């Protein structure tokens, strides 16, 4: 069983890289070679990844959410899976490589540093923690995808303004669609983050009686949550649109990444569990 997990752990970056390669080829050269089969490659990759997560949960007797490298593999899956659903629902196929690259990034880091943890602290076996982490990950996936579409919007906006009718112009969907995708992903991300915060607020005092509200992770997440909240409200009430909303989404994503990096690698936080 352990050997199977180790094998899939190495296989996953290879699968994501292959899928990325196919999506990238299709983006660069178009044609009919991979326009349909690339989705099948992504599906197979996600299926193997889901099996890997289930195997880990069974073998190590806890869901893979107890340290940052376990979380990264779930995040890689979550980003890939969210994109897969989005592609199925919208049939917009030209943006895959820009999102799958995030799955590659998260999965490679996880593959390199993940450990086979059997013994975990009792506090990490709580169901509430599971709900908290999964909703937070879906939230982060949402804001990651929102930021990617936001960046693509800004690039296409500039290209059209400056009469640059290259690959980006030819392959990407319209500005209006990119803005909508970015916004919908942000709303889903915001909703899931809100859920994660609510569960966290309920669970936190029980798990960590001595926690502090000045914890960098709490501050970072609150800031991200607030930014997205302002952006969504402004867009909903018609005050902001286009560039301004997508820029906010990109800024929110950068803050979220910085906050995670600071919390897990630089500062001391109760969110660091390993």
């Amino acid at each position, binding site marked *: 069983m352990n050997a199977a997990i180790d094998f899939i752990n190495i296989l996953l970056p290879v699968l994501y890289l292959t899928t990325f390669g196919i999506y990238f080829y299709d983006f660069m050269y*178009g*044609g009919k070679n991979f326009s349909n089969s690339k989705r099948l490659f992504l599906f197979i990759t996600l299926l193997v990844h889901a099996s890997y997560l289930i195997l880990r949960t069974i073998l190590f007797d806890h869901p893979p959410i107890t340290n940052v490298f376990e979380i990264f593999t779930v995040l890689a899956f979550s980003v890939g899976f969210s994109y897969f659903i989005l592609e199925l629902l919208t049939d917009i196929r030209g943006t895959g490589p820009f999102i799958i690259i995030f799955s590659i990034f998260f999965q490679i880091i996880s593959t390199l540093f993940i450990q086979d943890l059997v013994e975990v602290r009792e506090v990490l076996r709580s169901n509430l923690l599971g709900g908290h982490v999964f909703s937070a990950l879906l939230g982060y996936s949402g804001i990651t995808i929102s930021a990617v579409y936001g960046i693509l919007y800004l690039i*296409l906006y500039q290209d*059209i*303004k400056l*009469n640059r*009718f290259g690959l980006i*112009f030819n392959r*990407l*969907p*319209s*500005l*209006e*669609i990119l803005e*909508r995708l970015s916004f919908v992903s942000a709303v889903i991300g915001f909703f899931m983050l809100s859920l994660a915060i609510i569960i966290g607020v309920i669970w936190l005092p029980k798990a960590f009686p001595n926690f502090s509200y000045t914890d960098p992770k709490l501050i970072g997440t609150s800031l991200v949550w607030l930014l997205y909240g302002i952006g969504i409200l402004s867009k909903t009430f*018609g005050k902001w*649109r*286009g*560039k301004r909303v997508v820029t906010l989404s990109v800024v929110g994503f950068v803050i979220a990444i910085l906050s995670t990096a600071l919390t897990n690698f630089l500062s001391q936080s109760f969110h660091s569990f390993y």
Partner: protein
Amino acid sequence: MNLAAVTINHHTAPVELREALHLSAEEIAGFVQDAKGKLFNEGLIISTCNRTEIYGIPVDNKVDYNQIQKFLVNKKCVSNVKPENFRNYTSNAAVKHLFSVIAGIDSLLIGDNQIYHQVKDSFQLADELMFTGYLTKRLFDAAIKTGKRAISETEISEGAVTVSYAAVQLIEKIFSSLNKKSALVIGVGETGEIAAKNLKERGIGRLSLTNRTIERAEKVAEKLGARILPFNTFKNYMHEYDIILSATSSTELILTKEDIKNSMKRRSYSPVILMDIAIPRDIEPTAKEIDYVFYHDIDSLNIIVEQNLNKRRDEISKVEKIIDEETAAFFNWFNSLEVAPAIKSLREHFELIRAEEVGKNINRFSNEDREKLEIITKRIINKILHQPTVELKRISEQGQNSNDAAVKISILKDLFGINNIDEEEKH
């Protein structure tokens, strides 16, 4: 195969000459009526604004290209046509040329798939006029297949290659769906009218027109079901429109940057597309500096057109490969028409000789040996005919050079006197 083709097109003749030799459907009917039986047994005439092409199976070997050209020129009473204004093709080259035409690589606008429909209509017309025959019908199927493959297997028809379609392509890169958008066309001369028509065809939600001469605007608005805005007050309503397309013949600016700024404020900076397809320009180009204003003029649209044309040019080699494949397939079929009966005649001829000789000498053999004699003589005939049969089949499958097949069949028939036998049998 003796298919002949005579063509006058944009490669060979100026537009005045092409116009002069253009044949309407009625004229084609008259042409067919006069040419059938005199020049051709069966055929096809394609006549569009860029080409008039006559394809046919001549009634005999005496019909030459000059006769076909003269026939057309006399029919249209045109005097200043020179022989170099025509191009002539025969057999393989004629089939290939037809396939290149239907695939769009011979068009003025490479990959223009309008020609596909025009060739299809021409075949239909020839069929209605009973000008088609067994060969041209098969040629039609092969041509249609070639055209379809070119469109579906390559990108020869992809992308906008006219300014008006480039404008639509650009609009569709900004707005996802035109049916919820509104457009204002300023100036409804020829260009403005085409642009308005394109927008209407792409399903624009609301279309308004404004023109200095209100009568002209009314005429176009009636055709397209559009609203009219008075020219002297249209700026007051500009903010209501997502797309503003200007195509007036004015020598002065119609819209200044200030006008656009005011309009953007009123529409809370909701994106707007300004398409200035007038020469000289109608809209102040610095308007593009305003956020959410997508200003484009003829030059920027021409960039899209040129890029798409280059992409189409890159696809020509793929289309040529399809044409080669389909030409070979067509000649496989055509050669088999000649080869199969030739093989049959040859075998019947040898079988006749064998049967005659066996019949004459059968009494010299005992009853037990007669059966063996049959088997042995048949085997000898089969062995003798094996190589010629294989060779003829090979020629038929080799495809394009139908002359090779015809020459070899003719030699074979002459050497064994098969023609004489066929004719004797007929008598």
